[in-house]
């Protein structure tokens, strides 16, 4: 089939990688109008705002109540186990992206986390790695594209997943395809483990970062703009590390 998912994926990837400089030109033009630190092109803002509202509704109706039950009905050790299993399942993708980014230290940390938690931690049920002083390991393909020099392209609010961009959204698709857990269950046409994992990931993230989400919603005059700024800064930090200095950039304006 000409329009196979793989072909669409590759085409999007190429577009995200090479369209960056073109968008960068427009970005500079936008910067003249709205003085914004680390600006991101947002040509589909009305659509993004609609999805943002939709996500707010999903959070209120589904995610928040589910997280309330998760927090109050389950004992702490079960929550820790869920979080640890999800983290362990995510490590192969972290390892792969660390290698692609040439980040040997992150690769090593991710490998250690994976091996220790999968064996001593009984398949990830116990986060032995953290107790042994092995810190968290994170890396994704959107970040990898950023390290390779690709720009965001444009801002994109994804249903359920929230803030993203053309580059990072592409990254999420690539990570989902490359994930061995997903690949195994896709091949055996057993989809419930994939869906369960996605649902638990959403609740786990809501539990860990929900207070921050609620604070932003409450404190911001325009939460949409605030979340966009948070996203760009966070991703710049993940791509550039400590050299990302939004404050310094703002002062220089």
């Amino acid at each position, binding site marked *: 089939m000409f329009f196979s998912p793989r072909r669409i994926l590759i085409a999007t990837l190429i577009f995200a990688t090479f369209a960056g400089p073109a968008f960068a030109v427009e970005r500079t033009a936008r910067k003249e109008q709205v003085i914004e630190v680390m600006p991101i092109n947002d040509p589909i803002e009305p659509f993004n705002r609609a999805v943002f509202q939709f996500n707010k509704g999903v959070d209120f109706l589904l995610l928040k109540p589910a997280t309330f039950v998760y927090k109050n009905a389950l004992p702490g050790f079960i929550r820790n186990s869920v979080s640890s299993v999800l983290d362990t399942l995510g490590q192969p993708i972290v390892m792969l992206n660390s290698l692609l980014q040439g980040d040997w230290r992150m690769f090593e940390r991710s490998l250690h986390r994976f091996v220790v938690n999968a064996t001593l931690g009984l398949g990830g049920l116990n986060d032995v790695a953290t107790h042994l002083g092995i810190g968290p390991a994170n890396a994704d393909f959107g970040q990898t594209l950023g390290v390779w020099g690709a720009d965001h392209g444009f801002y994109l609010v994804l249903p359920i997943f929230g803030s993203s961009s053309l580059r990072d959204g592409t990254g999420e698709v690539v990570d989902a395809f490359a994930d061995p857990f997903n690949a195994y269950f896709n091949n055996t046409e057993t989809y419930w483990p994939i869906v369960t994992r996605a649902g638990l990931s959403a609740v786990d993230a809501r539990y860990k970062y929900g207070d921050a989400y609620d604070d932003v919603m409450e404190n911001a005059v325009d939460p949409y703009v605030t979340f966009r700024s948070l996203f760009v*800064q966070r991703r710049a930090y993940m791509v550039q590390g400590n050299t990302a200095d939004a404050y310094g950039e703002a002062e220089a304006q």
Partner: protein
Amino acid sequence: MRFLLSVLTVLCVGFVSPVGAAEDAALSQAKAYVDNVAQQAVSTIDETHAGKISGQKAKEKFRDILNNSFDIPTIAKFTLGRYWRTATPAQQTEFTRLLQTVILNKYADRLLESSDNVFKIGEAGALNERDYKVDMTVTPQGKPAISFAWRLRKAGSGFKIIDLAVEGVSMSVTHRTDFSNVIESEGGQVQALIDALKDKESDLVKS
């Protein structure tokens, strides 16, 4: 050659070291400053949870810590960005007041609700001739560690905090972006932002 080495040694010992030592002293001072502020916050949280002080008293103590250790006028000026210059002195004063009551105090209240946070001071570094950065990790109980980066500015013989970046996200920059967009969408009227913040303030009073 030996002469050249001696000259270099004298230059290094005579000039570089004192500068380096002064810089090291400033970095240690910056770390100690953040450590002190964090200790004050943690002891206030502990006293509140232990029932030694009332919730109201704790809020007052937190506000004192905020007033003493944060450079609120600089934060206000930064978060209003280029509109600080177009705002009237009365608007500047009103905005600064609202920033503190609606935004900063809210963060302080939220922090007060948390418990069992373990903090650890990390590295410190000079960002430019007047600003310093001090890293800190905060580990809330049962949750992953969060990286904090405090931005300090020299003030007299000490420091004042001018920004806090959480996981690479600067609070000041985030608010600045939000505020600028609100003003921009209202045709550059600073008053529109002040009115929006006043609405939030009255919501706070009601709740």
